[in-house]
Every structure is written in structure tokens, then in C-alpha cells.
């Protein structure tokens, strides 16, 4: 393919109707090789969530707590676990965890490449693929982060010299994720005339939901419009303080088993309907030279997700979309076809996004902004709660939930879960 064709592909975002049509999968029947309905999420668990540096327990302890709670939630013995999948170079490797838990037969260990939270849906998908194909029977997907005990993401690396991609960014003061991804959002908002009220609505939605969630670090700390407007710039003109995720100490885990097995377990099964990962043309090109730059990296991923799940954006009842920054949520939701880029100002309002009655309830646990920055895995757990009917901000009758992982990085991933009646 020529570069021109790929530049044209970037234009997909501006051609709203074409883009939505692509997401809706018209003319693209569901793939016969879909994972749809073969694997279920049977258990979820998390540690207590803390502000960074406030966990009294070591990171591995938080993780073991989360795994044991997920096993209890599912109603399985911890020794039945035989596989692990994670992402973002999690420090806790499966052999160490398996030894600690006394697992007799470790059958699957998987790390999904890529930094940030772009891999959380892919880690679920990787674990599910192992279950579907019989490499393992009971796979834990996990993430543990005690940022108070290790280097924080939001600080520049202390190295006195830099080479490679960093040599073209760090000396100019472009080091943190907030600084690296603001450039994409600035151009997107400029081109489509997006108002900052969109970002405020996304932030306030998460904080509003967190007020009903006792697990949330920001429970009891509501955010009003004035406080948002008065908050300091982190990176102008897109990221104020409340547009940026927290940094926390905590751990989360979920347990995947076959659809048949899930029927005999404690909880109402939640099925994986489809998942996709990746990124489009030269997304990772150095020095911000991605062909489709004003993007959250989902331009090719989202259409594949709908194709494999066999559903459309219009079918989704509740949406969990990873907030590294509110701008990432905005662009990822657009690229998954929920609204055209030109419609952002009308679509992203607190009224539309708030559970239980909003048109598209978003981040109903409080998410990375206000529940806990669990690198997006907390949002996966929340989607499971919604489909079980156990959320603190329950969307009545929710049957289809979408999870979008860490926007703007590469590779990114997203998935769709469904209750039994959607199979």
C-alpha cells in the first residue's frame, strides 16, 4: 500500500458516516474464527485501593489478595488456577505467583507487549484464547501496581543522557505520558472544533460515579464544575489536573474459564464476545510521525472488534473506556463509532454519560480517574459487575458491555462482554 492510501485511511476519522459504517460492520460478516461465547469471566477480585505510597502491603501481597478474592468470588480453589496473563511488563511473573500460591501445574504464562494500559483488553483476550484452545483451564488476568514502591509513571526518567526516540523529546521537556499524548489531542480538538467542556464532562462523570463506589479512592470527594475549571494546568491546552488519571497502589484480577465450566460456578457467567488489538499504519513511528496522528490508535482495531463480536456500537449498553487522560477517552469513544468527531460537543455531556439513565453510561466505577488507576483492569471488573447486575451504578438490564484499553499508545486493545442472553 502506498503512503497516500494510508493518509486516506487517517481521513476515515473525518468521514464520519463511512467510519461509523465500518464500525457497524456492514458488509463484513462475523468471522467464523471468533472467540465469541467460548470463554467466560467467572471471578473478579481486587485489593484495597490506595493513593500511591499508602499501601501497607508489598505489591506482590496486594496481587495475591486480589487473586484469592477472585477465586473466592468464582467459587474455585486457588490450586485450580493453571495460567496467567498480564500486560505492561508487570513486575510479578507467573512463576513467582504460582510458587507462592502452590499451584501444582502451571500451564500458561503470557505477557502482552506494550507499555501503558493499552494491553489490558488484549491480556483478557490472550488468556481467553488459551482457555478456548485448551492450553489451560483456569487463567488469571492480573495487574499489580504499587507506584509508591517503584518509579512513578508521571515523572521523567532520571537518566542524564537519552538516545533513540527519547533523544528527540526529553531534552525539550517531553517526558511524561501527559506530555507525549497531549500533541495528538490538541490537533484532534483543533481540527474538529471540540470544546473543553467535553473533557470536563468525562472527568465529572467518573467522579460522580465514584461517590457511589466505596472501593473508590475518590469516594467522598466529589468534583464540581468550578473545581474542575479552577484546577491547574498539567499540560495546556488539553490536560488540567482532573483530566489526568491518578497514580495508585493496588492490584486486580479476573478469572477465565470455559463457557461450560462457568455454568457450574458461583456467579452468573459473563462471556467474552470479541476482542481486538493492534494499531494502524506506523502508529509507533518515532518522534510522533504516526500517519494517523490525531487518533487514539483504534482506527483499524475498532472495526475488527465489532466484526469478531458480531454486534454494533448501537447495541452496547454500558461503556468502560480507559482514562489515562480525558482526551484519550474522547478520541477512543469516537473511534469506536459512538459519535462522529464533529459531534463530540453534543455527545459528551454529564447527562449522556452518567448512570443509570444516560444514553451511554461511561466508566461507572469511577475508573482510572476516581476509583483507582489499576491500569484499566478495574474497568474490566466493573464491566463484569454491570453484566451480573452488581454495580454501584447499575445500568438496568445491561447485557452488552464494551471495554476500551489505554488509548493513544500502541498496541491498543478493546473487547466486548455479554450476558448469556446475548449469545
Amino acid at each position, binding site marked *: 500500500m*502506498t*503512503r497516500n492510501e494510508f493518509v486516506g485511511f487517517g481521513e476515515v476519522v473525518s468521514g464520519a458516516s463511512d467510519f461509523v459504517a465500518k464500525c457497524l460492520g456492514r458488509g463484513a460478516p462475523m468471522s467464523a474464527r471468533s472467540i465469541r461465547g467460548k470463554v467466560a469471566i467467572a471471578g473478579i477480585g481486587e485489593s484495597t485501593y490506595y493513593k500511591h505510597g499508602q499501601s501497607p502491603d508489598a505489591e506482590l501481597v496486594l496481587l495475591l489478595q486480589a487473586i484469592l478474592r477472585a477465586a473466592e468470588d468464582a467459587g474455585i480453589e486457588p490450586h485450580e488456577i493453571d495460567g496467567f496473563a498480564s500486560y505492561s511488563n508487570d513486575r510479578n511473573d507467573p512463576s513467582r505467583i504460582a510458587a507462592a500460591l502452590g499451584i501444582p501445574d502451571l500451564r500458561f504464562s503470557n505477557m502482552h507487549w506494550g507499555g501503558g494500559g493499552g494491553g489490558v483488553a488484549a491480556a483478557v483476550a490472550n488468556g481467553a484464547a488459551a482457555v478456548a484452545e485448551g492450553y489451560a483451564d483456569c487463567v488469571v488476568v492480573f495487574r499489580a501496581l504499587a507506584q509508591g514502591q517503584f518509579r512513578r509513571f*508521571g*515523572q*521523567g*526518567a*532520571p*537518566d*542524564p*543522557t*537519552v*538516545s*533513540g*526516540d*527519547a*533523544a*528527540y*523529546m*526529553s*531534552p*525539550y*521537556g*517531553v*517526558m*511524561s505520558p*501527559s*506530555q507525549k499524548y*497531549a*500533541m*495528538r489531542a*490538541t*490537533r484532534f480538538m*483543533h481540527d474538529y472544533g471540540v470544546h473543553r467542556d467535553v473533557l470536563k464532562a468525562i472527568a465529572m462523570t467518573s467522579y460522580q460515579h465514584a461517590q457511589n463506589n466505596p472501593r473508590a479512592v475518590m469516594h467522598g470527594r466529589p468534583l464540581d464544575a468550578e473545581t474542575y475549571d479552577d484546577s*491547574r*494546568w*498539567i*499540560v*495546556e*491546552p*488539553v490536560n488540567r489536573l482532573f483530566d489526568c488519571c491518578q497514580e495508585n497502589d493496588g492490584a486486580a484480577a479476573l478469572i477465565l474459564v470455559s463457557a461450560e465450566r462457568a455454568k457450574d460456578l458461583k456467579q452468573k457467567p459473563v462471556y467474552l464476545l470479541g476482542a481486538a488489538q493492534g494499531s494502524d499504519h*506506523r502508529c509507533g*513511528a*518515532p*518522534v*510522533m*510521525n504516526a500517519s494517523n*496522528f490525531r487518533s487514539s490508535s483504534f482506527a483499524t482495531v475498532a472495526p475488527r472488534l465489532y466484526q469478531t463480536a458480531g454486534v454494533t456500537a448501537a447495541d452496547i449498553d454500558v461503556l468502560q473506556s480507559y482514562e489515562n487522560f480525558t482526551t484519550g477517552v474522547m478520541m477512543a469513544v469516537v473511534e469506536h463509532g459512538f459519535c462522529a468527531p464533529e459531534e463530540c460537543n453534543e455527545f459528551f455531556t454529564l447527562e449522556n454519560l452518567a448512570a443509570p439513565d444516560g444514553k451511554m453510561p461511561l466508566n461507572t466505577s469511577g475508573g482510572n480517574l476516581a476509583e483507582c488507576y489499576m491500569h484499566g483492569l478495574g474497568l474490566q471488573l466493573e464491566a463484569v459487575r454491570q453484566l451480573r447486575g452488581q454495580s454501584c451504578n447499575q445500568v438496568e438490564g445491561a447485557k452488552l458491555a464494551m471495554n476500551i484499553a489505554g488509548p493513544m499508545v500502541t498496541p491498543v486493545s478493546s473487547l466486548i462482554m455479554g450476558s448469556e442472553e446475548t449469545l
Partner: protein
Amino acid sequence: MSETYLPAGMPAPVPSADGLDVPYWEGTRRGELWVQQCGSCGNWQWGPEWLCHKCTSFEIKWVQVEGSGVIYSWERPWHPVHPALKGRGAYTVVLVELPQAGNIRMIGNLLGPDDQEVVIGGEVEAVFEAHDDADTPYTLVQWRPKT
């Protein structure tokens, strides 16, 4: 002591150990802007790569180009994430497209007042900012509005 846009103590760039981008950094020391163009199909590319992403030829040439461009995007970080930036205050970063080289993009600071208005599409020209006092001297390519 030369005047620099950001304070001393920022991370210093060094060419990658495999030698991929040595011509760029050597060029900046001479006040020249060198980028990559494919010797087989003529495709421009940045950052530096070992082969052409369009035709996969390894016949990559280094070509000197005019130091001018157009602002594609911008940002103004306020929160300091590096010790050297504490007390500096907000600074401006621009992502610049080079129309004379296939619209490849480069990052630099936009020299001038810290609160200046930044216009996407605005024309800028390169300024070579020497850091002669560094352990290994280097030069950064910065940008200023074209007058």
C-alpha cells in the same frame, strides 16, 4: 555559557549506540538539518530508520534540508516532571511538519515569550541551540516564528 530555552540539567541527547542517527546529531553541531530520504523510491521519513518504510529498501540517504516548517500541533507543559524544570514555569513545545521533506514531523521548543499565542499552521524556522558546556557537547534544533 550559552543561552538555552530550558535550564541546564535536562537529559542530554546522545546518538544511539548502533550509530543509526549519528548524521543527524553531527549535522546539528554544524548548524545543519539532515534527515532521511530513500535512495530507491524517494520517500522521506523521520525519525531515523534502517530501511524505507514505503519500499523496504535499505538504500537510505541522509539529505540536508532547509530549516523551516509549519506548526502541526503544540502543547505547553506547566507541571514539571524533571528536577531541572522545577521553577522554570510553563514552556512551549511544538510539533513541526516539514513540507519540503514529505511532511515529516519534528519536536522542538518554540522560542519566544512563554505565554505567546501558538497557531497551528503557523510558519516557523529552525534555530540551532548549542549546548557546548555539556559533558558531550550537543546542539538542539529549536523553532521560532518566521518573521
